[in-house]
């Protein structure tokens, strides 16, 4: 199959099917309702199950239930809907079962607006639910990358027995780009006998797996949290992904930006280069774990005078960038958060102001 022209939301739905996930439960919300629209037609064609829940809270527990049986399952939502799901996400992390959540972010807080935003960065990377839980969070910058990250998300969720999140902004969901679904990203579901619920041993297994997040004994709960922490530490070792752009030669300013915001920044970097100013960019593809070392090293380059965190939020990624730069350079923030995406001209003007 050659390339087809798809909306990001459609591509995410198709990618999940190609990755072998045939269970999708969701509640519609702009700007990601096309995923449900697409899968409500497509899943029955391939023998899958589409169910619309009565709310996002309900959906998060439908995901939990399906995941507990060892089935690949996912949902999609947008900012307010993810807030409602956060309780279920915490339970899923605590129960150590795999599931995939997609957040196509819109402006907030509250109902906010329906246009693109990256204002759920802190929620996704640091505060998704109560308790010491973390998600592996990937942030696509194109429809192609959204499809590939979705396909990778399922085996990663099974590797860590933990929820994985795709964090896209509204543009990722709504824009159309040519896309293809690489066959080599198809994976077989992992062996679930070790962890999935098996009722009264109906699978012929001689062990009964109890799935729970309740640990009343403080010592046992502490041990449980240490186990979870070990998984998150392992993510730091094994899952960090990023893209460096225009960083081979010297540059005066380093931009850190992710998602579709980084596409605007890339255009700005190219135009600044044409105007004789060298600017490098580091684009986190995983925002948790954050590419701390890569950002730190890029900022440490002798020619680099300033670092800019450019995002469609009020500086939610800024702390991660500052932490990575470790005070070696001043770190500045530029962004907008209302649905208006900063233009390349605005980014250029801001970057120029940093060296004046």
């Amino acid at each position, binding site marked *: 199959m050659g*390339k*087809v*022209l*798809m*909306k990001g939301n*459609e591509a995410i739905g*198709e990618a999940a099917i190609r990755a072998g996930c045939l269970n999708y439960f969701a509640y519609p919300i*702009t*700007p990601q309702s*096309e995923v449900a*629209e697409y899968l409500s037609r497509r899943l029955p064609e391939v023998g899958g199950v589409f169910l619309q829940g009565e709310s996002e809270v309900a959906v998060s527990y439908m995901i939990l239930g399906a995941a507990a049986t060892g089935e690949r399952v996912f949902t999609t939502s947008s900012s307010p809907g993810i807030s409602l799901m956060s309780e279920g996400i915490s339970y899923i992390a605590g129960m150590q079962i795999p599931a995939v959540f997609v957040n196509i972010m819109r402006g907030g807080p509250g109902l906010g*607006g*329906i*246009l693109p935003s990256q204002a759920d960065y802190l929620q996704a990377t640091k505060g998704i639910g109560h308790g010491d839980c973390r998600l592996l969070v990937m942030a696509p910058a194109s429809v192609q990358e959204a499809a590939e990250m979705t396909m990778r998300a399922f085996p990663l969720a099974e590797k860590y027995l933990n929820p994985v999140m795709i964090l896209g902004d*509204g*543009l990722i969901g*709504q*824009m*159309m*780009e*040519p896309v293809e679904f690489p066959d080599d990203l198809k994976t077989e579901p992992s062996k679930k006998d070790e962890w999935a619920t098996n009722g009264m041993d109906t699978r012929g297994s001689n062990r009964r797996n109890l799935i729970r997040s309740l640990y009343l004994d403080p010592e046992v709960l502490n041990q449980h949290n240490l186990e979870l922490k070990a998984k998150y530490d392992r993510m730091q070792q094994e899952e960090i992904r990023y893209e460096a752009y225009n960083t081979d030669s010297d540059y005066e300013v380093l931009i850190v930006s992710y998602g*579709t915001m980084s*596409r*605007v920044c*890339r*255009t*700005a970097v190219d*135009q600044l280069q*044409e*105007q004789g100013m060298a600017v490098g960019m580091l684009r986190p593809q995983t925002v948790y774990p954050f590419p701390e070392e890569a950002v730190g090293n890029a900022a440490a380059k002798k020619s680099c005078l300033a670092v800019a965190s450019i995002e469609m939020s009020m500086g939610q990624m800024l702390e991660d960038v500052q932490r990575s730069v470790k005070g070696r350079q001043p770190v500045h923030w530029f962004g907008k958060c209302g*649905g208006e*995406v*900063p*233009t*390349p*001209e605005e980014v250029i003007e801001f970057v120029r102001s940093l060296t004046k």
Partner: protein
Amino acid sequence: MAIALEGIIVIVGNYGSGKTEVTINLAVEKKKAGVDVRVADLDLVNPYFRTREARILLADSGIDLVLPPEDMLHADLPLLSPVVSGMIRNPSPLTIIDVGGNDAGATVLSALAEAFRDKYCHMLQVVNPLRPATDTVAGCLNIRKQIETAARMPINGLIGNANLIDETTAADVYRGVEFVEQLSQESGLPLRFITAAAELLPDIDLNRIPCPVLTIYRQLVPPWKKAHIR
């Protein structure tokens, strides 16, 4: 070959088939040719990339664009301006109505049945065979039927819009023509015109294309493609 269409044109098709790009570019081309053009953005189902995003271009070209009230432009509410039925009853020499995608988007047309009564209109289905639901003739006919049922109006013509945006090649355009010609044969719907992006035109042999070609200057682009060096 010029595109010979006048009166009311209703643009329908599946999600992402390119209805809005076709609407904007057709409106501007006809206006440049001296025709008075009015456009209505009737996309009540899609929150982004609607005709309203080109309102400045259309206004600068002297094209009247009917929209929901300004304070509701970014709402995801199905707002139908009462002005629309008026513009159908008393159409301009060319009135283009850009409808939302699929049967869901076309449902609004049934609410305008009263205004459409006794009026002839060109109801044209935009087809991009490089989109997943319309990559076969059967798929296009299926969408056609769903739209006609929801709209309670018959489709009576086709627009070929084969493209992969920036990655479109001349070969894609030729294959697209073959596809819509076959669709035209099997459905009995006449092919009104096809589209080709302005930057692709030098590569295309117009003698190989049996119908008019609408040049597309892409308007609905993401922000990183809007850059101009000051």
